[in-house]
Every structure is written in structure tokens, then in C-alpha cells.
């Protein structure tokens, strides 16, 4: 069941005019509410937060570390639920998202909103009370940034939506770091910058071969608003900034040789793939699909090697302490 007909006029959360009777008892299952949390996005958030937490200097009781990761995961999930509440009209007309619980009518918009707000409150308060208030404040700001700045404001307003909005996805390693140290320094900011500059090539590669989907939903993604070639040039530009940033933790002495080799090798592959995207012309999309898929592996490898090199020993020592 689709709640919104195709075409223009998509403006925010579904309320009046929805064909779901508001007074009808809910049929939503626990699985529908779990789907609202965007579990796949949540797993990447937990992984990057774990890396930030594990590479941070200092000690943290294992249960406190678990609590911090749990709160970050729940906070990320709450952001996802609030995003699905507001974007239900867009989700309904996009192939990739049309089967989400709100556009399918299994969860009512108000239920998704209440669920997201409740989880946000619990996650921030628990992180602040049980870990520290800098981490709690960063988590609150991340949720605010993703929901209000990105979802409500930027996503429908500018082709730079995912450039600025990408900051929300880049905060988790900083929250992980702040959970241990109660402060911030250059190293977590570097991890933030890696994810921040990784986001545009990653999402624009997807947007290039899903441009019709975004256009139908009225989302001004760069390929829709500025065209194919501009997007390909921007992908190259952001990849040129991303690769040195990926190598920086090794160059600045924060990471070891294995990280250095991994970041140089995978960075070179990213550059080659971005170059292939630049040379490719529609309707071909193989290069875009390759870049999108490899960019996920690229980010995963950088953080996994950093975690293995710097964090794992420290994490195990903390668990043994």
C-alpha cells in the first residue's frame, strides 16, 4: 500500500490525507520497530564508534564501554526512526525505500515520531548519566544534526545535502573517543574528517545510477540538480581530498605500518575507481556501482586495521583489567 501518489508536492511527514485510519489499532510488530532503527546503518555507526573508543588513550570499565556503545547505537537508531517519520512521503515513491514500515502503513507516522523521540531521550540521558556529559552532548547534537539539519532542512533544499549532512554520520568515532577521555583532540577529528569526506563520493556514486528515483521523489541530489558530469567531477574532487586524509593517521604517527600500507593501497583503488567514474558516460553505470561498493570496503578496512593495530590491544587490556 502506498500512501503518496507519484509526483510533486512532497512536503514532510504524512499526517492528514493518509489512507491509514488514525484510530485504527496498530498491527506493527516488534520487527517493524526494529526496521525503523535502520539496523545496517546502526552497525556501521557502532563499528566506527568502537574504533574511536578503542584507540582513545586512558581506561574505561568494560561495562561502561558497552553502555557507551549501546547508547550510541540506540541514538543512531532513534535518528533513523525520526528520519523515516519525516521522510515517509519520499520513501513511498522511491524503489529502494518504498517497503519501509511507515510508507507501507504498518507503523503510523505518529508512532515512529514517538518511538524516535523516546529512544533519543533515553540514549542521551543514559550516556550522559552513566558515561560522561561531553559524550551525551555530542550524541544529542548528532541526532539533532541528522534529523533537523539534514532530514528536515538540507535534504529537500540543496544538492549539497549529503555533504553537510554527512557530518552526522562522521560523529560516532568522536563520541566513542569522548566516552573514554571526556575530551576531544586532533585524532578523533581526523577520524571525523575521513568519514565526512568519504560520504559525498559514496552517496553520489549511488545517486548517479539512482538519479531517476531521486528525481521522482523531488530530492535535489547533485545528479538531479546539477547534472551527470558535474557530479562525476565532484566525486573525483572529494576523492582527491579523501585519500590523503585516509593516509594522515599513519603520516602523523597515530597508526602503524599496516595501516599505512592499507590506506595507500585502498586509496589508490579509490582514485582509480573515481577516475573511471569521471570517464564513464551514461547510460553505462558499472564504474559508479564499483565505486559505491568499494567505498564501503574502503572505510571498513581503514577503521578495521586501525582497530586491529591500535585499539585491539588496548581494548583487551581494559577488559582484562
Amino acid at each position, binding site marked *: 500500500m502506498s500512501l503518496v501518489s507519484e509526483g510533486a508536492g512532497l512536503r514532510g511527514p504524512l499526517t492528514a490525507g493518509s489512507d491509514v485510519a488514525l484510530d485504527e489499532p496498530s498491527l506493527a510488530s516488534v520487527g517493524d520497530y526494529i526496521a525503523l532503527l535502520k539496523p545496517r546503518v546502526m552497525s556501521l555507526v557502532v563499528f566506527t564508534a568502537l574504533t574511536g573508543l578503542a584507540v582513545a588513550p586512558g581506561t574505561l570499565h568494560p561495562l561502561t564501554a558497552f553502555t557507551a556503545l549501546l547508547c550510541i547505537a540506540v541514538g543512531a537508531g532513534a535518528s533513523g526512526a525520526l528520519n523515516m517519520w519525516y521522510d515517509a512521503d519520499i520513501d513511498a515513491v522511491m524503489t529502494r525505500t518504498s517497503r519501509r514500515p511507515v510508507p507501507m502503513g504498518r507503523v503510523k507516522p505518529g508512532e515512529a515520531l514517538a518511538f524516535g523521540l523516546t529512544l533519543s531521550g533515553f540514549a542521551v540521558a543514559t550516556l550522559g548519566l*552513566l558515561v560522561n556529559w*561531553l559524550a551525551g552532548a555530542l550524541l544529542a547534537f548528532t541526532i539533532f544534526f541528522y534529523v533537523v539539519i539534514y532530514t528536515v532542512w538540507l535534504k529537500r533544499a540543496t544538492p549539497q545535502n549529503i555533504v553537510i549532512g554527512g557530518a552526522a554520520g562522521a560523529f560516532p568515532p568522536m563520541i566513542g573517543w569522548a566516552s573514554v577521555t571526556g575530551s576531544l583532540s586532533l585524532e578523533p577529528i581526523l577520524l571525523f574528517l575521513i568519514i565526512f569526506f568519504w560520504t559525498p563520493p559514496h552517496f553520489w556514486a549511488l545517486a548517479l545510477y539512482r538519479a531517476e528515483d531521486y528525481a521522482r521523489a523531488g530530492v535535489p541530489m547533485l545528479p538531479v540538480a546539477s547534472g551527470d558530469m558535474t557530479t562525476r567531477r565532484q566525486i573525483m574532487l572529494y576523492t582527491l581530498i579523501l585519500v590523503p586524509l585516509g593516509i594522515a593517521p599513519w603520516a602523523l604517527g597515530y597508526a602503524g605500518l599496516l595501516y599505512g600500507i592499507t590506506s595507500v593501497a585502498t586509496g589508490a583503488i579509490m582514485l582509480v575507481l573515481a577516475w573511471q567514474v569521471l570517464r564513464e558516460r551514461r547510460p553505462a553505470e558499472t564504474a559508479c556501482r564499483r565505486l559505491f561498493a568499494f567505498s564501503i570496503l574502503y572505510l571498513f578496512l581503514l577503521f578495521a586495521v586501525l582497530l586491529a593495530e591500535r585499539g585491539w590491544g588496548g581494548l583487551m587490556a581494559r577488559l582484562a583489567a
Partner: protein
Amino acid sequence: MSTGIAMDQDRKDDDGVVLTEAQRRARRSRSIAIALALGALVVLFYAMTLVKGPGVLVRPM
């Protein structure tokens, strides 16, 4: 409307919303999930209080 039908309607209104079996099952599973989540939160706060010991009220920025 006949008197009998009107009385049936009144009785139905008095009963409030009558859930179908599927709605009843969905509500039960949601209630259990909420109970488990709240129970886990209580256990977490209790355990963290033990971990923090006397420093439980010390929460640096």
C-alpha cells in the same frame, strides 16, 4: 434503524475498540519487548552503579 440494532450498537460502543486476533498478538509482542527493554535498563543502571561505586555521582564533562 430498529431498536434491536440500536441496542447492539450501544453495546458495541460500550465495549470500546475490539481488537482482532492479529492486533492482539501484535500488541502483546510489543508489550513484551517494552517490558524487556525497561528491565534491561534497570539492570544496566544497577550494574553501572556497582561499577562506579562511590564515584557514581562524579560525571566529568
